[in-house]
């Protein structure tokens, strides 16, 4: 409650509050409040007018009741009346009530605004302050609208009191936060900046806050503030501690103001003017020097204030990142804090060092503290500090100290907190890979990782080991040996079994020569773990067994025996059962040649950025931008300034780089957080497997078809013999047969589509491979994947067209929530009008759905509209986007004309921009009849006997659009010897010529 002076104390209020506090239960409290409300109502209703004091008292009670959580629906008028009182306490309570209770749409708002205006224009500073506080506390848009112009005037007026100026600055800051568009500084800018020179430090502090916010909004306007801020800062820093009197806090001169000024400077790059720059450097040096001085007081406030300034100065130094000496000094200063007994200081030091580590100047300096940091990791009591230490170790790691850091992190992992284990695991995995000098070390590290913290090793990590081992010939033998040894431990983590199964299945032969690891021993070792594993791991092991049959024919009998056992052949799990049956059949029927082909070693994986890094980023969450930031920075310094990856995201596949470079492309899977994430195309891939009977029937086909074997086998799960559980089998379900050979399914990153066809959504990955086929014809199959087929039938007349789109469901399950819409991008919207009639939201299995599109051409256009299809298949949402083949030539109307007419018009269209010519190489055989058909299909009339050279083709027609009609003449001159064509187009519009030429030239 507001403090009340003596004699003005409101006894009734005090009694009421003590009554409430003494209430035994909620019910009693409600009763008391109801009673009080009734009393106040009767008083307000009463005939005789209330005096200011009792009005204040009752309004105060209402306020208290409201703050207890009860609704108040009267008394607003009385509160507004209090505003016009001349007594400070009454006015204050009035403003208090209003800023707490009155919402912006109240009809009293005009009265309130009026009262505020009166107070603002009064010369009484306390009243002005009250009014400004009320504006700031309410801070609504209406308030901003009413007073955004008034407040800056008070702020810069010469005769305003200092305390009012402070309030005005902060009030403006608040209004700027709620409605920045209304706070326009305009002509006040310069004068506001000059507040930094004000005599009164309070005004400067308030103004600095305001300027910092405004400078972030429009940095150019407030550029002048830099020099003033530097000057002010240097005056504060160099002043003796007694100079500033009230603003000296425990022997530190104006710490809050210093911090704010340093923040303001962080909005700008280092000043260009040498003098200012020198002065700033001097300031920063002084601050760093002061940190070295012995403390003037033992009080904690003194060191807190001093360190606050220091840390802000260090972040400014890091922000500028231009003064190597300062950076190194800052780093050394932080190094001292690393061993400070204040936990907060250690935390802050580690955090700042993380950013320092990414600067090229101070990276080395940071590295000198490695021992301390490692020590902190081990002995620190506070988990958040340990977390920072891990971050710092990660940030400071490079090739020279990678082994040490990774070893330390690994050893720490055993005792680490559960909450940060997964993150450490990811970090170790990344560092191990990034700085691996030899891959044997890498393999050892990751196996250790799995051993120490198997539960926290996510799939990405062990996928990655396998990926690397498969791609690196030199480590395969070593990996097999190490894995074999690791598996001999009595208790292995399941992830280790997975890695072991995969690697031994692939490269077990490399160590089979040793009698201690003969094929049978290998198999027995793996099989001893079989029963302890979950279903996906068992499935993987089964695949490893069939690989063994290929690698070591001598163990075939044993393995077949295992596969034949009831626990496999009659396993309750469908996946395991199916694998067992198929593998058993495969091993007994197929010849060794076929086996060798089917069970070939996995080909190397396409190089791509690590999904681990993406995972680490996901873990950090979008709120924390720093790791990305310093990752990028670091990368810049490491790669000597290659392209900024965060901007060239989606297609950045840095294939020529080594793994290290590959790893460093961080943003490709996880786009920068400020952009919306594209809908992951993996939905398609995760669609449930095609029904089981279908697969089962594929097996006999597979086994009987000899030469077609590989292709035919592709839709069944058995090709990807080491397919890792269900996600994998879904991925290889029935791609187009022609892609069978490229069926190296992406095991390692679920985020990347295996087939570019299936990446819809944005403009880029729209499926358009069939697009050009439709330029010269109107009907056919536009798109097909394993779920959906899209067929087209269309007819065009003049500038109108109608298109029938047939959606065929290739599966046996119903598509739910089916929706197809046509999107015309950007300029196309005005040029082409496509109206899709609504269609059924469900498509039954095997059925076809027809949708009619009505098309109207408004004017000539270049782009094609996109058909977006969305539906739910099984549980997952599927997205398909296809370019609709609506091209300009569809609106061609053929015109017959004589040779004379033709050449007359040809000459009329002689302006250089009207003619477009293209000479290109033939892509198909140069058959005259085919060419004729294509030109007719293109839409133009084929004019015989016009051109003197009979082998040339001449055509004419009119493009109809709603607004205009464009006449077109075309001439195609084939050169059979050179296998070249020359295509010339003349139309009355240059854009039309260009577009038609582009379209037609693609066809030959």
């Amino acid at each position, binding site marked *: 409650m507001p403090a009340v002076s003596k004699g003005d104390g409101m006894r009734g209020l005090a009694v009421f509050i003590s009554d409430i506090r003494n209430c*035994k*239960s*909620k019910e009693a409290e409600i*009763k*008391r409040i*109801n*009673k009080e*409300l*009734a*009393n106040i*109502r*009767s008083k*307000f*209703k009463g005939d005789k007018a209330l005096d200011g004091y009792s009005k204040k008292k009752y309004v105060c009670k209402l306020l208290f009741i409201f703050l207890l*959580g009860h609704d108040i*629906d*009267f008394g*607003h008028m009385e509160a507004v009346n209090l505003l016009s009182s001349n007594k400070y306490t009454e006015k204050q309570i009035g403003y208090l009530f209003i800023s707490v209770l009155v919402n912006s749409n*109240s*009809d*009293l708002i005009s009265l309130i605004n009026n009262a505020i205006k009166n107070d603002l224009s009064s010369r009484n500073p306390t009243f002005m302050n009250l009014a400004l506080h009320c504006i700031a506390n309410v801070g609504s848009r209406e308030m901003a609208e009413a007073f955004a112009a008034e407040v800056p005037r008070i702020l810069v007026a010469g005769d305003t009191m200092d305390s009012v100026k402070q309030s005005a600055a902060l009030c403006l800051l608040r209004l700027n936060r709620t409605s920045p568009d209304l706070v326009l500084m305009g002509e006040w800018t310069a004068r506001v900046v000059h507040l930094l020179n004000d005599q009164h430090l309070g005004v400067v502090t308030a103004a600095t806050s305001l300027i910092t916010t405004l400078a972030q909004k429009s940095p150019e306007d407030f550029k002048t503030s830099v020099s003033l801020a530097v000057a002010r800062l240097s005056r504060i820093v160099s002043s003796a501690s007694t100079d500033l009197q009230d603003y000296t806090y425990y022997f530190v001169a104006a710490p809050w103001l210093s911090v704010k000024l340093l923040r303001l400077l962080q909005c700008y790059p280092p000043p260009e003017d040498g003098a200012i720059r020198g002065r700033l450097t001097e300031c920063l040096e002084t601050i760093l020097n002061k940190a070295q001085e012995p403390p003037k007081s033992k009080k904690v406030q003194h060191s807190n204030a001093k360190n606050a300034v220091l840390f802000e100065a260090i972040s400014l130094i890091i922000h500028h990142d231009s003064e190597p000496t300062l950076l190194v000094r800052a780093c050394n200063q932080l190094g001292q804090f690393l061993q400070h007994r204040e936990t907060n200081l250690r935390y802050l030091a580690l955090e700042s060092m993380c950013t320092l580590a990414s600067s090229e100047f101070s990276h080395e300096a940071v590295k000198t503290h490695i021992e301390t940091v490692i020590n902190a990791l081990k002995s620190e009591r506070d988990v958040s500090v340990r977390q920072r230490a891990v971050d710092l170790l990660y940030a400071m790691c490079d090739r020279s100290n990678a082994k040490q850091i990774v070893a330390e992190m690994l050893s720490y992992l055993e005792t680490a907190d559960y909450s940060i284990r997964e993150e450490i695991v990811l970090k170790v995995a990344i560092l191990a890979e990034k700085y691996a000098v030899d891959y044997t070390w890498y393999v050892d590290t990751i196996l250790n990782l799995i051993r120490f913290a198997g539960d926290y090793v996510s799939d990405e990590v062990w996928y990655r080991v396998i990926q690397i081992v498969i791609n690196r010939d030199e480590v395969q033998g070593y990996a097999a040996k190490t894995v074999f040894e690791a598996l001999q431990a009595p208790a292995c983590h399941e992830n280790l079994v997975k890695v072991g199964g995969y690697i031994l299945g692939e490269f077990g032969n490399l160590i089979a020569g040793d009698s201690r690891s003969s094929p049978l021993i290998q198999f027995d070792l793996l099989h001893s773990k079989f029963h302890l594993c979950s279903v996906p791991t068992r499935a993987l092991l089964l695949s490893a067994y069939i690989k063994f049959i290929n690698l070591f024919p001598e163990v075939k009998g044993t393995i077949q025996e295992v596969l034949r056992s009831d626990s496999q052949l009659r396993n309750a799990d469908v996946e395991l059962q199916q694998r067992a049956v198929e593998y058993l059949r495969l091993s007994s029927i197929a010849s060794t040649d076929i086996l060798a082909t089917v069970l070939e070693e996995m080909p190397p994986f396409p190089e791509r950025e690590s999904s681990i890094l993406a995972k680490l980023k996901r873990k950090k969450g979008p709120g924390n931008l720093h790791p990305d930031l310093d990752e990028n920075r670091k990368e810049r310094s490491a790669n000597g300034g290659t392209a900024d990856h965060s901007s060239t995201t989606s297609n950045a596949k840095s294939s020529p780089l080594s793994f290290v470079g590959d790893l460093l492309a961080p943003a490709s899977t996880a786009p920068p957080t400020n952009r919306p994430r594209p809908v992951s195309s993996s939905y398609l891939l995760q669609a449930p497997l095609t029904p089981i009977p279908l697969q089962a029937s594929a097996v006999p086909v597979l086994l009987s078809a000899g030469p077609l074997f590989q292709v035919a086998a592709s839709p069944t799960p058995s090709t990807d013999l080491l397919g890792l559980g269900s996600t994998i089998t879904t991925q290889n379900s029935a791609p187009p047969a022609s892609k069978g050979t490229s069926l190296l399914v992406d095991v390692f990153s679920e985020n990347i589509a295996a087939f570019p066809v299936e990446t819809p959504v944005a403009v880029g990955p729209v499926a358009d491979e069939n697009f050009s086929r439709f330029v010269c014809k109107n009907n056919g199959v536009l798109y097909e994947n394993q779920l959906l087929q899209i067929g087209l039938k269309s007819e065009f007349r003049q500038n109108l067209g109608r298109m029938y789109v047939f959606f065929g469901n290739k599966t046996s399950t119903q598509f739910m929530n089916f929706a197809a819409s046509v999107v015309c991008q950007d300029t196309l919207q005005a040029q082409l009008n496509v109206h899709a009639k609504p269609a059924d939201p469900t498509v039954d299995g095997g059925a076809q759905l027809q949708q009619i599109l009505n098309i109207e051409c408004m004017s000539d256009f270049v782009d094609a509209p996109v058909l977006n299809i969305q539906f739910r298949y099984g549980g997952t949402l599927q997205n398909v986007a296809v370019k609709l083949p609506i091209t300009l030539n569809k609106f061609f109307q053929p015109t017959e004309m004589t040779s004379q007419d033709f050449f007359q018009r040809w000459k009329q269209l002689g302006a250089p921009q009207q003619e477009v010519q293209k000479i290109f190489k033939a892509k198909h055989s140069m058959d005259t009849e085919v060419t004729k058909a294509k030109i007719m299909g293109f839409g133009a009339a084929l004019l015989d006997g016009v051109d003197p050279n009979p082998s040339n083709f001449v055509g004419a027609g009119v493009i109809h659009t709603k607004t205009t009609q464009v006449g077109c003449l075309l001439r195609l001159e084939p050169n059979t010897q050179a296998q070249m064509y020359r295509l010339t187009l003349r139309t009355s519009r240059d854009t039309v010529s260009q577009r038609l030429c582009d379209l037609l030239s693609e066809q030959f």
Partner: protein
Amino acid sequence: MIGGLFIYNHKGEVLISRVYRDDIGRNAVDAFRVNVIHARQQVRSPVTNIARTSFFHVKRSNIWLAAVTKQNVNAAMVFEFLYKMCDVMTAYFGKISEENIKNNFVLIYELLDEILDFGYPQNSETGALKTFITQTGIKSQSKEEQSQITSQVTGQIGWRREGIKYRRNELFLDVLESVNLLMSPQGQVLSAHVSGRVVMKSYLSGMPECKFGMNDKIVIDKQGKGGEGATGQSIAIDDCTFHQCVRLSKFDAERSISFIPPDGECELMRYRTTKDIILPFRVIPLVREVGRTKLEVKVVIKSNFKPSLLAQKIEVRIPTPLNTSGVQVICMKGKAKYKASENAIVWKIKRMAGMKESQISAEIELLPTNDKKKWARPPISMNFEVPFAPSGLKVRYLKVFEPKLNYSDHDVIKWVRYIGRSGIYETRC
């Protein structure tokens, strides 16, 4: 199964905490306090789920009883247990209050150990409990007595011990009913039902076999065919539950209620009826709004039962709008007062005979507010007590047979009393 049981005072301080299962941690005690007792909004649901733990609570005056479990238990069972627990405590030390609980905490822990075992409810019959949980301290029992307790607790008739003797064999029977009503302003009955209990207090020697008869429609019809002819009205009982001593097989077969009663007080049966209810009072409201700042209310109540009977403790509660600033009341009978703390006019009449009517009129002044929402006009509610059973239930006989001891049905002194109370008895206005 109940994992634990906590008792809190109104401030949320824990008075009793008994944990039966390991899955209930210490923090569960605090979780309930923070999320229910000290919740910002009033928690109205008796079942609260906090972090996969279910809390079932009942409130007795200012005391909270909460049963906690992590399992998917039968909620009705838990509440039945909590009510039983309240009954047991009342039987042992009277009113459930903070003071009483603090004074008897050792006893309560003892009781909790007995009536819940690993979270499973056990025998909670007060009579049986009193034989081995006493407040008079431990008195050394002879071997014989001990074995008697064992055989009695584990035996077939767990609710009555053998060898009880009274000089005067006496029996009290109370029919307690509460009548619930919701009526439209025009006097149309929107919903009405009676929930009643038959409470029996017996002081009988030996192991008497009792038979209870009432004017249940099914029974009367059956007998009607047999002879006598159904002269008195019979009632249709919607559903009923019996004390565990009643032989349900016999009830199912012959619709006769026979049992060996526990010594002392017990609730013999509970029932509910919805047909042919005698509504003891009729409320006729008349509300008129005079402009924005005035409201006129007139309420007439009519009693609708035999003029020879007297209704007691009549209280009519007329809600007032939230912006009431003043009230004037005039009533012919009883006393009426505006209670600001409850936002209602309360009209009390001590006694009223049947077939009479009485009236109250009030003028309510309102304070104009800027709030647009209209007053919801809550219903007028009423409380009363009448000396008959509004459901029409009549006790026809209660016969006592004790073959071993030599007293007959005629020697037992029997008392029957009917009390009808108001439950939620509301009329919309």
